[in-house]
């Protein structure tokens, strides 16, 4: 029965991943990260993704701060932040987030404040969704590891 738990969790993980791929939330770069995870680096994906979350939230705060400044919206600085956000998103396979950054950057290059505001909202929403789904994925993985561990108790 415990064995079934691990298997079911693995199926849940696969289903979730398939959904995220189907929605275009993740792309094959995420799979590449998973391939880099092994016994010597068993938490690689979650480590990198947690760094990504930490950095992304800083960037989002900075972007919001820059846009809220009505007097002098520093579009150049926004562009720099967006480049960073784009780069890291692409490195972990966060396709939709990255694509919104591209649109956001285009708006900032035109000094289009309304467009930037719209893009920022979309970005925050998309980032939120990504974060929730990846947390769900990591939770499933943890549960699966525990279920598999119980199935094969340590001898001696």
């Amino acid at each position, binding site marked *: 029965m415990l064995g079934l738990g691990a298997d079911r969790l693995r199926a849940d993980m696969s289903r979730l991943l398939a959904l995220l791929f189907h929605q275009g939330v993740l792309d094959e*770069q995420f799979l590449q990260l998973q391939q880099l995870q092994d016994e010597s680096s068993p938490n690689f994906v979650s*480590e990198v993704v947690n760094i990504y979350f930490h950095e992304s939230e800083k960037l989002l705060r900075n972007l919001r701060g820059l846009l809220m400044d009505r007097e002098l919206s520093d579009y150049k600085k926004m562009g720099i932040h967006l480049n960073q956000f784009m*780069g890291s998103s692409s*490195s972990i396979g966060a396709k939709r987030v990255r694509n919104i950054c591209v649109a956001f950057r285009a708006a900032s290059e035109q000094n289009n404040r309304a467009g930037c505001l719209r893009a920022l909202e979309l970005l925050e929403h998309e980032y939120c969704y990504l974060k929730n789904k990846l947390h769900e994925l990591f939770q499933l993985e943890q549960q699966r590891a525990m279920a598999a561990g119980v199935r094969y108790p340590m001898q001696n």
Partner: protein
Amino acid sequence: MNNMARNGTVSRRFRRSEKVDGFDFSPAVESEEVHVLAVDDSLVDRKVIERLLRISSCKVTAVDSGIRALQFLGLDEEKSSSVGFDGLKVDLIITDYCMPGMTGYELLKKIKESSAFRQIPVVIMSSENVLTRIDRCLEEGAEDFIVKPVKLSDVKRLRDYMNKEVKMGNEESGINKRKLRESFDLSSSPPSVSSSPSSLSSPSSPSPSRSPLSSSLSAPSSPTSLDSPIRRLKMTNTDY
């Protein structure tokens, strides 16, 4: 490797340094492993490139800026580059293009301007697929240009390339290294390796973009490498 176990010889690495001593090679350097200096201001990207390189059996030093890279190499203008780096030999530098302060392009120029380090191959990474940027880097002597996100296949391709470049000076190269070692196991006398690299370099490597094995360590910019990044761009999704 099996032959070694049967003959009762010690581990590969120990044996390597024994042989290497006989050729006046610094024992402090692990000539087996390639040492890569990775430069990227993004922590996420540093983690990823570090892992990609380590999983490909490379030693990695990752720094977050061009300045730090120069400091590591000893090219920092503030310090005199008098003290050498024994045991910290860098076999490849891989750097992001877009970085605050010193860009990857500027770093590339500084390295190629240095007599001590210009022979180290430099690879540029960029998230932007801009042909003029690529051309500029190649003209300045970059060995290759990788469009981000960097994949295992990219690093594997570099690895094959590095094996041949590094080992040329060590009278061995890539694929043939294994064959040479096996033949040494069978003989009781210490190996006498010929010092002509051309006879050992083999085009049997699977990477299609790396045929110019005649490019020696001293050639900073081999025109033949112009092919590979362009090919890389066209074949972005191909694993080879």
